């Protein structure tokens, strides 16, 4: 018995229930030897053809080769979506609100928000996957997630886009609120303990006004749309105009690096690439929204 074959055989049988190990090992050895002899092929070639030992062992033991098999996959995806799109934003929002109440500090609140979203999101993903992988390895699982037509979601036709528009309104209102709040409350604390705005105060005698006006315009137009559910021509024109009034100055401010206050920049290092990426991001998202609105209006 050559070492290569023996290594292969050991690699297969150590993943097989102990009771069958010797029998399968013995049969594999003769089979491999028979194949080499019968075809006049090289040992290496024959082993390559037999394939990954892990796969072969799974065939012998009947174990699944997937972490979460097709039986549980739909339930897994449904739960994962629920956790990441509903529970995670709630937890993140609560942690940000608590942090604002505690510290009244924008930098720390943003940090808490991002940190919570990343850590809790990763935890949710990891634990859900572990639990489902374990359930998939318990032999008796007939009752798990038998789908019935009752599980079908209601048709969304009557509320087409309503939720998205609602979220968009909430987001824009939140943005206006944050901009005004950081101006009034001066939530940023410099290393020397003085309070300061996050955004450049000079913006308040200039470019911040079209940004705020654009946001307010977007909110008004989206509220009208939620009420009527129809994109009339004036409404679409208004939406495009408001988006331009909001996005173009904002992208310009960011691109010109006139976005953050000098107090903020003294403590926080902002990479040059951030400005470029953020400016392009604002333009791309806004362009996407406009295209979507135009499409909805036509369709």
């Amino acid at each position, binding site marked *: 018995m050559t070492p290569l074959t023996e290594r292969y055989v050991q690699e297969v049988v150590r993943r097989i229930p102990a009771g069958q190990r010797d029998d399968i090992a013995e*049969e594999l050895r003769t089979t491999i030897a028979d*194949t080499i002899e019968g075809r006049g092929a090289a040992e290496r070639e024959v082993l390559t053809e037999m394939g990954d030992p892990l796969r072969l062992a799974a065939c012998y033991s009947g174990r699944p080769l997937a972490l979460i098999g097709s039986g549980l996959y739909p339930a897994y995806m449904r739960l994962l979506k629920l956790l990441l799109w509903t529970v995670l934003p709630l937890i993140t929002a609560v942690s940000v609100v608590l942090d604002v109440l505690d510290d009244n500090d924008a930098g720390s609140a943003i940090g808490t928000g991002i940190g919570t979203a990343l850590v809790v999101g990763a935890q949710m993903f990891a634990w859900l996957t572990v639990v489902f992988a374990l359930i998939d390895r318990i032999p008796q699982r007939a009752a798990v997630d038998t789908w019935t037509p009752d599980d079908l979601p209601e048709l969304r036709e009557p509320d087409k886009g309503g939720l998205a528009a609602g979220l968009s309104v909430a987001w824009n209102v939140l943005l206006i609120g944050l901009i005004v709040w950081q101006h009034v409350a001066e939530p940023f604390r410099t290393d020397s303990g003085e309070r300061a705005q996050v955004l450049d105060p000079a913006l308040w005698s200039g470019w911040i006004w079209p940004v705020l006006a654009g946001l307010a315009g977007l909110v008004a137009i989206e509220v009208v749309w939620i009420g009527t559910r129809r994109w009339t021509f004036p409404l679409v024109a208004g939406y495009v105009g408001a988006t331009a009034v909001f996005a173009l100055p904002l992208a310009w401010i960011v691109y010109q690096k006139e976005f953050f206050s000098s107090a903020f920049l003294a403590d926080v290092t902002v990479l040059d690439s951030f400005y470029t990426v953020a400016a392009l991001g604002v333009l791309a998202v806004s362009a996407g929204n406009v295209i979507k609105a135009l499409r909805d209006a036509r369709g």
Partner: protein
Amino acid sequence: MSSEELILSQAQELRRGTVVLACLALLREPQYGYALLETLNDAGVTVDGNTLYPLLRRLEKQGLLTSEWNTDESRPRKFYRVSPQGAEVRDGLVREWNDLVASISQLTKEN
């Protein structure tokens, strides 16, 4: 994908389902793994070793095959043969096969 390639891959799907029946038919006489593989491939039922050998184990576990180690020759070999239950299942599958052939030829004749 060209038509030939599509035919080839679909034909492989068709043949895959026949491996169990072919094994149960061939193993009237006791046979060991590699020899069975060669016989099957010669008969046009292409199957890889890493599929066939675990399959034989599974059929044995289901009680359709019995096995015995033969140590008369230079290498000890595990010989499989059909059990009485395996013969019953084989006859049932042969009937299914004949029905299938009949209905498919009926279908293809009409078109």
